[in-house]
């Protein structure tokens, strides 16, 4: 494989940093971890501006998920993630593996996943492949979420022409840590601690998925797609139970899921966070296919795998937990002091790279941006609206509601018996916390059309709407996870949209004092004429201190008064 997807200047930069020419395997490793998807090279500079701290924030961005404190020892863990490109190619598996991936992010914190929400964008359902994509995606989310027993409690969906070539599939997962539970970080530290790889065997699936997500999705997609990843929700469920059991022992130092860029990113990021290094033996990695090369093993994005950093004296106890759940668990290496990512394969050292170079070494790009003109909007809407418009609008609204019901009927939203306000009943969904009076309100909101017309205001609007939705059920908004979906950042207008959207979220978040604790950026969603609207999705979590004040919508009693608040 060697170098792929890197620009000339990045190649030079790598050689300079390293002081030598990397070998082929090393080039593959650098290429994938310096991809947009892993390194956030176009967005890092701007995301740093977010408000990320508050009294109740226990963990902000940078870890596998954000953590907020609800008091009495209860902490909520959450994050949103996109799986747009895989879903465009194979909607069912793309969406299913998207669910699996975000669930493992929450699991890596050591928290039990308690809810999922989705945020979906497709082209008009009556046109082309859109219905097929829509049905596949909803089917895939239903397949994975239902099987692992994590309720999908809400979401949102919009159909617009601009998403025809590039649907958006964002999924948010919410987890809970109880008073007795420790939270973990994706951290490898402590010389001599062991690297335990658990779950599925490693195959060739999803090779180069991270760089795939960092590329334009064009008509060539079928030719250059990575081999498709297939989700195994059954194994996903076993991973949840076994990892939570392992996390309850005192032998675990760190937990990290394997997502984009597989072993490369999970190992090097864990090592970097722990200011340590790792030494890995690829022959120890359980393989599903024969004759896999070092690159293939390192870069594979096979699903349903987790990495645990464990104390050697507890290894036997922890491995026996995974055996009990019929899962494979292999020690593939150990933590070393020197801050390096060292890989052996068939008796040879094939990678020897500084973790700093891998994780923090990529160039940062700050491409040019350009404001654009949007069509002039008539301020006198009233004169334009005719009776048939109103009828059409009402019909659409009704169809829309029945379509949404058709979606959430396919999701098991009541498993875990905490869903006190299910989808279809309120502006946000509400979960109770068993053993307390507390509730958690969760919602996803976004409006690409508004953001296209005015990226900054549109983003502010999305934050405000999420906030209002939490308030409407009686919750106090606490924190945001943002899923940012854009076109190609090298198009100046797209980069303008990105910068403005980040400003808008930031302004709203600071004004309302609702910090951002986690998020995700997905670029390259369509290009040129076919690019999507800038589509930030705001996932928000709020708290209800006392569920007896839960507000359910609907007019309750004849004679009650109606008030309109605001202007």
């Amino acid at each position, binding site marked *: 494989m060697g170098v792929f997807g890197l620009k000339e200047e990045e190649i030079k930069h790598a050689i300079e940093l390293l002081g030598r020419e990397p070998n082929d395997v090393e080039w593959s490793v650098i290429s994938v971890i310096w991809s947009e998807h892993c390194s956030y090279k176009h967005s890092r500079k701007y995301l740093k501006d977010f408000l990320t701290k508050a009294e109740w924030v226990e963990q902000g961005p940078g870890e596998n998920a954000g953590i907020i404190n609800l008091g009495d020892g209860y902490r909520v863990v959450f994050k949103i993630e996109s799986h747009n490109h895989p879903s465009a190619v194979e909607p069912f598996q793309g969406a299913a593996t998207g669910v699996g991936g975000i669930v493992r992010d929450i699991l890596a914190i050591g928290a039990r996943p308690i809810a999922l929400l989705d945020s979906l964008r497709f082209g008009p359902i009556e046109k082309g492949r859109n219905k097929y994509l829509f049905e596949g995606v909803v089917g895939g989310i239903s397949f994975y979420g239902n099987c692992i027993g994590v309720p999908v409690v809400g979401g949102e969906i919009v159909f617009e022409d601009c998403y025809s070539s590039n649907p958006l599939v964002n999924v948010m997962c919410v987890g809970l840590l109880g008073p007795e539970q420790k939270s973990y970080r994706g951290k490898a530290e402590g010389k001599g601690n062991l690297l335990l790889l658990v779950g599925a065997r490693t195959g060739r699936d999803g090779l180069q998925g991270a760089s795939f997500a960092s590329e334009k999705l064009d008509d060539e997609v079928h030719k250059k797609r990575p081999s498709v990843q297939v989700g195994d929700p*059954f194994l996903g*469920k076993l991973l949840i139970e076994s990892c939570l059991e392992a996390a309850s022992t005192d032998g675990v130092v760190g937990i990290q899921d394997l997502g984009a860029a597989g072993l490369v990113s999970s190992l090097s990021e864990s090592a970097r966070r722990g200011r340590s290094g790792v030494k890995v033996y690829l022959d120890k990695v359980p393989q599903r296919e024969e004759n896999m090369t070092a690159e293939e093993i390192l870069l594979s994005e096979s699903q349903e795998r987790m990495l645990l950093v464990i104390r050697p004296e507890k290894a036997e106890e922890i491995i026996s937990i995974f055996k009990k759940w019929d899962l494979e668990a292999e020690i593939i290496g150990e933590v070393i002091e020197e801050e390096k990512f060292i890989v052996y394969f068939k008796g040879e050292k094939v990678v020897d790279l500084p973790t700093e170079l891998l994780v923090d070494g990529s160039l940062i790009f700050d491409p040019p941006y350009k404001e654009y003109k949007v069509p002039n909007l008539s301020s006198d809407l009233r004169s334009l609206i005719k009776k048939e418009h109103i009828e059409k609008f009402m019909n659409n609204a009704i169809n829309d509601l029945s379509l949404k019901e058709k979606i959430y*009927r*396919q999701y*098991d*939203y009541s498993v875990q*018996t905490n869903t006190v306000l299910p989808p279809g009943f309120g502006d946000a969904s509400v979960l109770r916390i068993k053993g307390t009076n507390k509730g958690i309100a969760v919602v996803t909101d976004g409006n690409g059309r508004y953001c296209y017309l005015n990226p900054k205001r549109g983003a502010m609007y999305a934050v405000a709407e999420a906030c209002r939705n939490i308030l409407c059920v009686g919750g106090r908004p606490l924190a945001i996870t943002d899923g940012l979906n854009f076109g190609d950042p090298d198009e100046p207008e797209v980069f303008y949209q990105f910068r403005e959207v980040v400003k808008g979220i930031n302004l709203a978040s600071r004004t309302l004092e609702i910090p951002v604790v986690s998020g995700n950026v997905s670029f390259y969603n369509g290009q040129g004429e076919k690019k999507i609207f800038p589509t930030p999705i705001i996932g928000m979590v709020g708290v209800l201190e006392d569920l007896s004040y839960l507000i359910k919508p609907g007019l309750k009693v004849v004679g009650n008064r109606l008030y309109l608040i605001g202007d």
Partner: protein
Amino acid sequence: MRVGVVIFPGTNCDMDTYHALKVVGIDPIYLWHKEHDLKDSEVIILPGGFSYGDYLRAGAIARFSPIMNEIIDFAKRGGYVLGICNGFQILLEAGLLPGAMLPNETNSFICKEVLLEVVNNNTLFLKNYRVGEILKMPIAHKEGRYYIPDRGLEELKEYNQIVLKYHGENPNGSVENIAGIINRKGNVMGLMPHPERAVEEILGSTSGLNLFLSLLEKV
């Protein structure tokens, strides 16, 4: 009574069932699918979920779990066994109840609250309900279309084995609106709806309470 809740790989309503039993004041125990010991349970509950991912057919693989041998013996000796949703599917596959489950007629997973009519309360599990009583419980399944060939159906009726029927709307295309059945002796029952999700007002229904309350008393 001592109640055992079985965990198969992929079971996902074990904790919900445990919680529902706690709500009525029962301290249940968990039973692991690889064990052979029922730990003196007087009632065994097979909870819902996706045992073995529901791969091949719902319940088809779990029914060969080691603990199923003991459960089958236990049931044959008259022990009380309740299968909820996936648990019901496992009981059918194991032959402890007649018939089979097919994919829903809608061809999709369905999650919603449904109404049920108690058509026969002649079993421990339903003795606290009146015949004709209408219950409200959630369903959440993809393979809930109960099917039994005509001869079997006649026998089910002859021996009064149909205990719960969907009331009003039949959500999944089940034969004769069947939602729950018992074996001839009445000690084994299976139902597709989730009573454990209907034991607290805050979740929208308490229709399932009486089922779990019936397990409180000694027989």
